[in-house]
C-alpha cells in the first residue's frame, strides 16, 4: 500500500487511527535515521587514529604492515585471538604481561631485543578498541585513503577525509528533507481534515506542488541558501592564501627522498637553525659543498642539477678548487668552466677521451644543462649565476605570526615530521599541514608539555603538585597559556 492510499483509507475510518499511523511512520523514519548514524564506525576509528598518532606512531609503522621499533600491528587481533584481555593488558603495561610468564609475550619481547614498550595504563577499554579498529582499518585498507603514489601524493592525502564527511552530510540532508516532506504532508492533511470537520473544506486538498511552492518553503529555501552561501564564502575566504599541498618546482631538483630517506642525513644537519633559531634555515650553498665537493655527480640527474650549486658558489669541479675572483667574472668565462665540466663528464660516461671532439648529442646535453643552470639561478633582478640559489619558499606564515622552531624542536621535542609530514619520502617537498591557526591551536590543546627534566617548568608549582597527587595526568601547552594571543602575535 502506498502512503497515499493508506492516508485515503485512514481518512475514511477515523482521525484517531490516522494520527496513530502517521506517528508510526515517524517512528520508522527516526529509526532509519538512527541506524544511519550508528551503522558507521568512522567515529571511533577516527578516535583511534588520533590515539595511534599520539601514543603508538613513534614505534609502530602507520601502514601496519612493516616493522619499526615495534612489530607491525596489522593482524594483531588474530595473533592474540581468544586472549583479548591479555592483549589489552599488554597494551596497558606489557612488562606486567611478560612478568606473568606468557610464552608468546616473552618471545615477542625477546624478538625485539628486549626494548620496553611504554606503559599506557590510562587507556580506557573503548580507547584501545578504537585503536584496534583503526589498526584493522589501515591494515585491510578499509580505513582512510588508499596509499597513493606518484606526484599527487600530498593532494590525495589531504582531500580524502573530507569527502567521507560530505557523503554523510548529503545522506543526512536527503533523509531530513524526506522527513520534512512527510511532516509537511501530515500537517497539510491534518489541516485539511480539521477544516473538513469544521465543515468549510476547500474544493481540493493541497498538492505536493502547492506545498513546495508555498511561501514558507520558498522562504526557508532562500534562508538556507543564504546561510549555506555565507558559510561557504567565509570558509573559502578563511582558506584563501593557505597553501596546503603546495609543491612548487624548485630551482634545483633536490630530492629529500634521496638525502633524508636513503642517505639518512639528519634534518638538522642542513636545517641547522631549527634547534637554535626561530627559522629552520634553508641551508647555504656551502653546506651542500660539505658533501658535494666529493659527490660531484647526482644519481638522478648526473651533472644537470649539481652543477647549479657549483655555479652558485663558484667551485670548479674539474680542479676541485674555489674559483678566485668568481664574483666579478664574465658570464662567458663562467660558462666555459662549467660547460667543460659537463662535457668532460659526458665523455667519460660514453668512454670517450677528453681530447675527443664533442658529439652532437653531447653538445645538445651540454647546452641544455647550461641553459637549465642559467634559468634556475638568474632572474629579473639577478643577472649572474653567482650568488644565492633562489629556492621557492613553501611554508609561509603571515607576518604577524611569530613561530619559533627552537621552541618546538629543542624545548618541545616535536619531531619535524609532525608538522612537515614525511619529508624523507618526498621527492618534491610539499606543504603537509594546513598551517592554519586552528591547526596550531588544536595541537597546543592536545600536546603535553615536556615537563619532566626541565627546571624551567618548576615555576608551575600547582601543576607539579597536582601531578604528584594524581589529579592531573598531563599538562598541555594550553594549560600553560599556549592559546593566548601574545604567545604568537606581538
Amino acid at each position, binding site marked *: 500500500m502506498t502512503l497515499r492510499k493508506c492516508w485515503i483509507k485512514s481518512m475514511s475510518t477515523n482521525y484517531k487511527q490516522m494520527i496513530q499511523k502517521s506517528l508510526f511512520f515517524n517512528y520508522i523514519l527516526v529509526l532509519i535515521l538512527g541506524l544511519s548514524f550508528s551503522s558507521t564506525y568512522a567515529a571511533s576509528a577516527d578516535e583511534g587514529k588520533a590515539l595511534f598518532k599520539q601514543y603508538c606512531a613513534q614505534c609502530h609503522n602507520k601502514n601496519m604492515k612493516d616493522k619499526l621499533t615495534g612489530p607491525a600491528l596489522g593482524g594483531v587481533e588474530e595473533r592474540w585471538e581468544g586472549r583479548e584481555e591479555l592483549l589489552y593488558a599488554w597494551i596497558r603495561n606489557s612488562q606486567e604481561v611478560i612478568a606473568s610468564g606468557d610464552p608468546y609475550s616473552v618471545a615477542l619481547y625477546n624478538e625485539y631485543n628486549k626494548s620496553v614498550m611504554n606503559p599506557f595504563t590510562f587507556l580506557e577499554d573503548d580507547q584501545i578498541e578504537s585503536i584496534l579498529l583503526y589498526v584493522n582499518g589501515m591494515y585491510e585498507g578499509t580505513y582512510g585513503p588508499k596509499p597513493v603514489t606518484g606526484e599527487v601524493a600530498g593532494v590525495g592525502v589531504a582531500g580524502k577525509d573530507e569527502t567521507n564527511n560530505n557523503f554523510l552530510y548529503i545522506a543526512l540532508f536527503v533523509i531530513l528533507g524526506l522527513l520534512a516532506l512527510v511532516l509537511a504532508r501530515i500537517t497539510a492533511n491534518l489541516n485539511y481534515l480539521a477544516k473538513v470537520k469544521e465543515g468549510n473544506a476547500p474544493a481540493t486538498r493541497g498538492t505536493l506542488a502547492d506545498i513546495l511552492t508555498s511561501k514558507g518553503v520558498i522562504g526557508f529555501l532562500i534562508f538556507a541558501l543564504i546561510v549555506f552561501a555565507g558559510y561557504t564564502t567565509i570558509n573559502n575566504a578563511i582558506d584563501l592564501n593557505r597553501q596546503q599541498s603546495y609543491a612548487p618546482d624548485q630551482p634545483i631538483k633536490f630530492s629529500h627522498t634521496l638525502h633524508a630517506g636513503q642517505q639518512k642525513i639528519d634534518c638538522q644537519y642542513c636545517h641547522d637553525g631549527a634547534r637554535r633559531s626561530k627559522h629552520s634555515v634553508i641551508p647555504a650553498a656551502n653546506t651542500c659543498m660539505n658533501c658535494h665537493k666529493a659527490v660531484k655527480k647526482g644519481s638522478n640527474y648526473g651533472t644537470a642539477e649539481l652543477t647549479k650549486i657549483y655555479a652558485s658558489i663558484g667551485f670548479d669541479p674539474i680542479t676541485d678548487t674555489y674559483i678566485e675572483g668568481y664574483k666579478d667574472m664574465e658570464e662567458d668565462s663562467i660558462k666555459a668552466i662549467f660547460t667543460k665540466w659537463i662535457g668532460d663528464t659526458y665523455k667519460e660516461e660514453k668512454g670517450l677521451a677528453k681530447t675527443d671532439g664533442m658529439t652532437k648529442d653531447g653538445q645538445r646535453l651540454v647546452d641544455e644543462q647550461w641553459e637549465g643552470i642559467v634559468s634556475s639561478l638568474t632572474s629579473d633582478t639577478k643577472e649572474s649565476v653567482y650568488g644565492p640559489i*633562489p629556492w621557492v619558499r613553501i611554508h609561509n606564515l*603571515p607576518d604577524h605570526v611569530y613561530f619559533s622552531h627552537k621552541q618546538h624542536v629543542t*624545548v618541545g621535542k616535536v619531531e619535524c615530521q609532525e608538522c612537515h609530514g614525511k619529508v624523507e619520502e618526498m621527492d618534491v617537498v610539499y606543504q603537509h599541514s594546513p598551517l592554519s591557526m586552528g591547526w596550531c591551536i588544536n595541537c597546543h590543546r592536545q600536546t603535553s608539555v615536556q615537563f619532566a627534566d626541565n627546571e*624551567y617548568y618548576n*615555576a*608551575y608549582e600547582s601543576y607539579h603538585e597536582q601531578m604528584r597527587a594524581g589529579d592531573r595526568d598531563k599538562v598541555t601547552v594550553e594549560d600553560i*597559556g599556549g592559546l593566548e594571543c601574545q604567545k604568537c602575535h606581538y
Partner: protein
Amino acid sequence: MKNHQDTTWIGITDKNNDPELQDVAQSEFVGLPIAEALSSEKIVENASANRRDFLKYLGFGLGAATVASCETPVRHAIPYVVKPDTIVPGVASYYASAIVNGGDFCPVLIKTREGRPIKIEGNPMSSITKGGTTARAQASVLSLYDSDRLKSAGTIENGTFTKGNWADIDKAVAGKLTASSNIRVVCNTVMSPTTKKVFNEFKGAFPNTKVVTYDPISSSAMLQANQENFGEAVIPNYHFDKAQVIVSFGADFLGSWISPIEYSHQYIKNRNVSKGKGAKMSRHIQVESGMSMTGSNADNRIMIKPSEQGAAIATLLENLGGGGSPYKVNAKAAKALKNLASELQANVGKCLVVSNSNNKAEQILVNKINDLLGSYGATMDFGAVSYQRQGIDAEIQGLVKEMQSGGVDAVLFWNANPVYDLPNGDAFAAALSKVSTKVSMALSMDETTSLCDYAMPTHHNLEAWGDVEPKRGQYALIQPTIAPLYNTRQGESSLLMLANSPNINNTSERPYYEYLKQNWGAMATTAGFSSGRQFWDEALSNGVYATKASATVAGGGVQVGGGSINKPSSAEFELSFYETVNMGNGNYANNPWLIEMPDPVMRTVWGNYLAVPINWNESDGRFEGFKGVGRKVVKGIADKLKVTHNSVEQTYSTVPQFGQMNGTASIGLGYGRSVVGKAGKDVGQNVYPWCTIDADGNTQYFATGATVSEMVGQDDEFGCVQYHHTYGVSGQYDGETVNVDEVDIVPIGKGYQGAITDRTVLFKDSLSNMDGLLEDMTKKRNNAKHLNDATLYPFEEYSAELYSQGHHWGMHIDLNSCTGCSACTVACMAENNVPVVGNREVSRHHEMTWLRIDRYYYGEAENPNVVFQPVMCQHCDNAPCENVCPVNATNHSSEGLNQMAYNRCVGTRYCANNCPYKVRRFNWLDYTSADLFGGNQNAINSEDPAYYTDNIVRMVLNPDVTVRSRGVIEKCSFCAQRLQQGKLTAKAEGRRLRDNDVKTACQTACPTGAITFGDRNNKEGSLVQKIKSPLVYRMLDEVNTQSSVFYQARVNNKDEKLDA
C-alpha cells in the same frame, strides 16, 4: 595633612582651570569634527564621487581584492651562499662598540639581526656609563639608515653635489695639498688616540698643518681655567656620588652637560629613599634662569638672569669667605646664596660645585669654591680626567682671522659644521670663501659641506672602526656592525691616503682596521697583556678597557688670577640658549626619533620654542601670562612672538614655562639647520648667531637686550604632548581644588565620587615630611582597599588561582631615580617599531609613543619642583579596556599581560576610551606603509612617500615586532618579544627564569636604573624586593584596576630656607 593631589599641576591651564583643558581632558580623541577635519584636509572639496561612483569603486574594489587574493605570490627563501659562522638567521648577535659623536660618548652593545644593526643597548661592562644610554645613543641607529647621507665621494659647486669617484677625488685633493701649503683641519672634540695619531701622520706629511678643535657647545673656559690652575686643559673627574651637596650653576649635567649618563648614574646613588623612614639623600641646588632638565630634578632652584651667573658664583665665593664679589645678584638670589654658603660650609669635603659657564674667570672662581670646600680629592680629582670636551674657542676664532687674511690654503672639515654652529658662522663662511681648497669629511650635506669643493664622506659610527679614550686610561673600541651602506670611506683612511702614509696598506680589505690594531698592539704590554692579540681580542669583545690604576691626582690650591667675570646686564630682557637633551649641538637634526622625542621639561616636539616666564599674580593665584601668551597650548595652538636681537628678527611659537625667571626667556640650540635632509627641514630656528664671543674668544650662550614683541600670530600645529592623553590634573572648582577632568565627568549631585576625586596618581613630598608622606600613602592605600573590597568581582579569589604559578610580570618605577632624560622613550620606539608621525600629527594628539613621561609641577608656582612620571600600559589584572572590546582583540594572559592582537582589532577604540591611564594609541594613518592596500589615503605631513616607506629607513625595523597598519590600537606590550625570547632561553637551557633573562627596552636604556622589570612570582627576584618598599604605590589604586606597574613615590630634599 597636605593633600597630595591638589598641589600638583601640569601647566598654566590647569592652574587656572581653563575650559580648554577640561575640553581636552574629557575626550580621548581630540580633534575636529569629521566633516571639518576632512575639509581641512581638502578631501571634500576634491572629492567628486557620487553614489554611482561609490558603487563602481566598491564593485571594482571587491573584484580586485578577489582577483588579487586568488593568486598567491611566489615567495623565495634566499639562503646565504657561504653562511658566516657567527650568524644564525633569526638570532640576534650583539657586538660591543661605542657611539661617539664629538664629545658624546656611550659604550654600547649593538643588536644586529642578519647583519643589520637594529637596536642599541648600553654596555654594562663600562666603568663610566655602567650600561646606561642616552636618547641620542639610542637614536644613532636611525641616523645610519638616513637616506639623505652623502652616498659617494664627489665635488661640490655652489652647494650642489656632483658624484665622483674616489680615485679622482683623491688625486685632485692630494694635488691641491702640497707640502708647503698652510692646511687646517677643523674638528670637534676628538677622543680617539688613533685618530690623533693619524692627524700627526698627516701633519708629518704636510708640516704646515694645524688641527683646530672647537666644540659647538663648548667648555672652553673650563679647560682654560684648569690649564691655568692645574696645568692641564681637561675636565676633572667628578664624583657626584660622593657629594652630599651638589651645586650647579647652569650645568645641565643630567641632560646634556659633558657626560650625562655617567653623572646621572652617580647622582642617583645618593638619592635612593626606598626604605622610607630614616632615608637619607643628597642635596642638589641648581642656579639657573630657565628650567633645565637638571634644574627640574633639583631640590632647590635659585633663579638668576643668565648674565648674573658670574656674579652669582662670585657672591657664593664671597659668602664662603673667598674674596669679594664685584657685582651683585638679585636680592632673592643673594639671600639664597648666603644660606647656601652656610650649608656648604657645614659639609666641607662633601660638596661639589659645577658650572657650565664659558667665562674663564668664572670657572676659576668655581675652582676656588671647590678648593675652599675641600672638593679636590674628595668629590673631584684629576686622575681619570675627562677628555670629552677639548675645544678651545679662541682657536677657531683665530682661524676665522687667519682665513680672512688669506693665510690658509686648504681647510679639511672633520665632521665639523662651523658655518652653522659658530656664533659668527656668517663671518666664518665669508672667510672660508678666501680659502682655495675646502674638503669636507662629513656624513651628510650640511651648511659647511655645501661651501666646500670636495666631499669625502665618512662612514657612520656603526660602519666604522675606531677607538676612543673618553677619560684618561679608559678606552673603548668601535667596531663596524654592517658593511658600509653607501660608497663612503673611513675618514682616517682618507687622511692617511692623502698623507701617503707608509703605515697603512690601502690595498687591503680593511686598511684602517689593521692600522688601528697595530696601534693597539703597542699598548698591550703597558696594559699588562702577554700578547697584542690577546689584548685586542679581549678589548674588542668587551668593548671597553680600563687601565688598572689611574692615579688619583687631587688638584687644589687654586689661585684666582686675571680675567673678569661677566657683568650682570641691566637690560630688561635676556635670552639664554641651552643644549637640548635630544638635539645636541645640531648634528642629530635629521633624526626623526629625536625630533619627535618630547623635550623633557617643555614636553614639546618638532622644533625649538621660546620658553617665557609665567607671570603669576600672587594676590589671586591666577596666571596673568607673559603678554597673554600660551592660553591655547592645551588645544595644540601656540602664540607666536617676535624676538629681536642685534636687529635680527625671529618669530617663535611660545611656551609659558614654570620656573623661568621673570625677564628672561630660553631657546634651545641645535635647531633650524638650513642645509639638512628631508626630516630635519624647517624644524625650529637657529640661535647660534645670537650667541656672543667674550674677550677670551669664548662663546657666551646668552644674549642681553633682546626685545620680545606682542603676539604676532598663532601656530596651529603646535605639539606639546603634556596636554595629550591627560588625567588626574588639579584645578579650582567652586573654591575647592579638585581634578579637573572629574568636574566634568563624574558630578554626582553636588559632590563627587569620593574615591575618584582624590586620585592616586602621584605621591611626592620632601624628605623632612617623610612620616607625613608615609602616613598619607597608608591612608590612601587603606581607602583604596576599602573601596576595592566592595567590588562585585572578588579579585583576590580569582587572581590567587590565576597567578599563583608560572610568571606574573610586573614593573617597578622609582620616580626618585627618573630624571626625565627620555632614553626609554626612544628605546621603546626603536624596539617596538613605533612610527614617527610628524609635527602635524602630534599636534592632533596622534603621537604613537607607547611610553610617555608625564611632567608634573608642585610647590611654588613661580619656582616649582618637578616630578617625571613614565607612563606605559599598566597591564592591569582587572583591565577596563579588555571587557569593552567587541572583538576580544585585547585580552589577558595567564602571565598578567594585557595582550593586544592587532589582526583582530577593528578599531572601535572603545578600549582607549575606557583606559584610565590613557596609554593606548590609535594608528590614524598608515605611518609605516604596512597597509595591505598602500596609497589609499592622504600623504602624511604632505610627505610623499611617508618617512617609513623608505626602504633604507625600514631596515631599522625590528623583525620580531609586527609593523602595525592603519586602523588598529597599539600600546606597550611589556616587550612581549623579549619575554618570549627570555623564556625560551631559560627553557632551552632547562633552568628557571632569572631576572637577567627578561629586560624591557626601557629598562635597559635607563641610565639610573629607575625601571625594574621582573616576575612577581619570583620571590627572590629584584622586582619583588623593590615592591616591598613602603613608598611603593599603584596608580589609580582606588579604581581597582590591579595594575602591574608599581611606582615609588618621589621625595625631594628641599630646604625651605633657600626659597624664602
